[in-house]
């Protein structure tokens, strides 16, 4: 598959304590230190901890400094930097399209090629989802765009290290 050579982003898996305000602390740190967030996904892993997957813009600051500043937050327990090789990276997108009725089969074929799912379809509307590597989402979306995307929502990437 097409994976870019020089990463323009870094992916961090950040384990945090489930304490009130922890997301504000992380987001506030990025804002005040001038680090740019590409995407952020967060949910509890158990009673005590949550995992935040942050994709950061590699241009905005040295990744080492971003990791060290994050680590200073008292509620941040662990930070792992994930590379495409070392991690399983997934993202989901929901797309609603208004299309030329004659194009529906073509679009269905395209979505199937990415192992996406058509959630429902009318004569001139399509609703679909794809859960895959974020770059696959980028590819699919760029191919769908000429057909007429009405609305879309991406979740932001989530990631954990691969089995060795």
């Amino acid at each position, binding site marked *: 598959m097409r994976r870019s050579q020089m990463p323009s982003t870094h992916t961090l898996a950040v384990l*945090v*304590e489930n304490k*009130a*305000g922890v997301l*504000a*602390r992380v987001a*506030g740190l990025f804002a*005040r230190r001038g680090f740019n967030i590409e995407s952020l996904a967060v949910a509890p892993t158990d009673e005590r901890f949550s995992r935040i997957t942050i994709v950061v813009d590699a241009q905005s600051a*040295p990744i*080492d*400094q971003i990791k*060290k*500043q994050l*680590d*200073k*937050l*008292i*509620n*941040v*327990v662990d930070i792992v930097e994930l590379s495409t090789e070392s991690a399983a990276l997934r993202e989901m997108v929901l797309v609603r399209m208004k299309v030329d009725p004659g194009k529906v089969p073509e679009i269905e074929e395209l979505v199937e090629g990415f192992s996406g799912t058509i959630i429902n379809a009318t004569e001139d509307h399509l609703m679909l989802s794809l859960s895959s590597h974020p770059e696959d989402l980028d590819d699919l979306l760029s191919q769908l765009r000429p057909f007429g995307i009405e609305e879309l929502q991406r979740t932001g990437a989530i990631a954990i290290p691969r089995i060795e």
Partner: protein
Amino acid sequence: MQMDGGQALLKALEFEGVEMVFGYPGGAILPVYDSVLESGIRHVLVRHEQGAGHMASGYAHATGKPGVVMVTSGPAATNIVTPLADAYLDSVPIVAITGQVPYGLIGTDAFQETDTTGITMAVTKHNYLVSDPNDIPHIVHEAFHIATHGRPGPVLIDLPKNITDAANPDSLMTWKDPGPLDLPGFQPVLDADPADVTAAVKLWTEASRPVIYAGGGILKARGAAELTALAERTNTPVVTTLMARGAMPDSHELNLGMPGMHGNYTAVMAMQEADLLIALGSRFDDRVTGRLDSFAPDAKVIHVDIDPAELGKIRMPDVAIRGDAKRVMAAMLAEFGSATLADHGGWRSTLSGWQENYPLAYESAEPGGKLKPQMVLERLRDASPKDTIVASGVGQHQMWASQYWQFDHAYTWLNSGGLGTMGYSIPAAIGAKAGMPDRTVWAIDGDGCFQMTCQELITAAVEKIPIKVALLNNSYLGMVRQWQEMFYENRYSEVDLGGPVPDYIKLSEAMGCVAIRVEDPDEVEAAIERANAINDRPVVVEFVTEPEENVYPMVPGGKSNSEVVVPPFQQKERNQ
């Protein structure tokens, strides 16, 4: 034991060994203040909450114990934002307790509600909003631990009124001594990796122009003795930053004094020409480095800091050592063993040549002219006990104080280095004196700074904390005026403080101080002696000084340290 949250807070403070709190009461913190009456902790009632914050800082720096500030919600909480930011940038361990509206009212724009934890997130090391009074003992315990361990800093605890108010059933709690700490995300590393120490020592033995760049972290780590030992063992000259003044005696021949924007010529140039900088608890602040891309161009760097985020943040080190400065210095000393170092003879003679040609110096006043501030500080230094604690404001007077005082003891210099907070000196001096009542404490203040926080002299008078203030009155916001003179073609904009108002003598007397005005050079010594002899109330000595005196040397903002400007009379000598 059953109690309410207010009682639990005081008990928790006592459990942490707190002896003194600087604060100001109000609605949301009222129940806690009711418990203050029963407590053995001394409460110092300030006149503005900002003062309480700086007092806690001054107390902490002078005593080595965390300072505590306690105020109500809303405007009181926002009034301590400045001292929190100040303590955050200068890594001072303080714990702030703020009242908050009852938990159920949070988010409703209730009277005196502010989002205190939200507002202070960026200026504290950590903060807490407590929802259950049973959490008070362990949260207070954690707060003190976090404030004082690793890189120290301020921690805030926001206490909603419903959990402290005895009249509210929400406040009922059962006291339990805090158990073991459970902070998986806060595990400071104190001891260096031995391989890094070995690598550092190797670089050091090879260097021919080494300089120790000593920062405030050495004082936080209580490593002053190790610094001198390490400098002596390696025969390496030391520069002490604004935050590290006193970390090594100024009288020591290896101590070159303060580097940076207003550092002395030798300290500035020593860093600039070094082939090795050993940065110990310092952070390559822009006021030290000047223009970064031309800073110390030939130097390799060993950087020691307890905060790993400082390593490589500004200047990439050749050897980065994460650890407590005191322990790392001890490890380095051990690692040196009987190693021999490269010869520094040439380097030392370069340095003494600079010292001879460009000493810190000023031109004496013309006969009948106004007092020179530098002369006043020299006299004050010579007439005061050697271990006098000095707290300064921010401006020209701060730079002269750092330059002309002789700091031969650690923890005798208090100032606002990172934030540059005007008004710091009087409250910080009060905090230091409250914690160290047997020491002489002088606030060295500017007239602009004095007008920001002088009301705390009422606190000093009423609470019987007899500090002394040397007010260097140049009737200007002098530091700003100097920049306007040098970089804005003498276009003075809003820097004239409009003397003779206020009358500092009447003002100080009205606040319960003894006040002395000095205009004649022959009266300087007598006034200082009189002030030093007064121990039952605060004293203000107003020195009316030369208004247009400038601070030299100076590295103009954004310029390379190599372009350091020496005073005009030394420039002439240079051209001869």
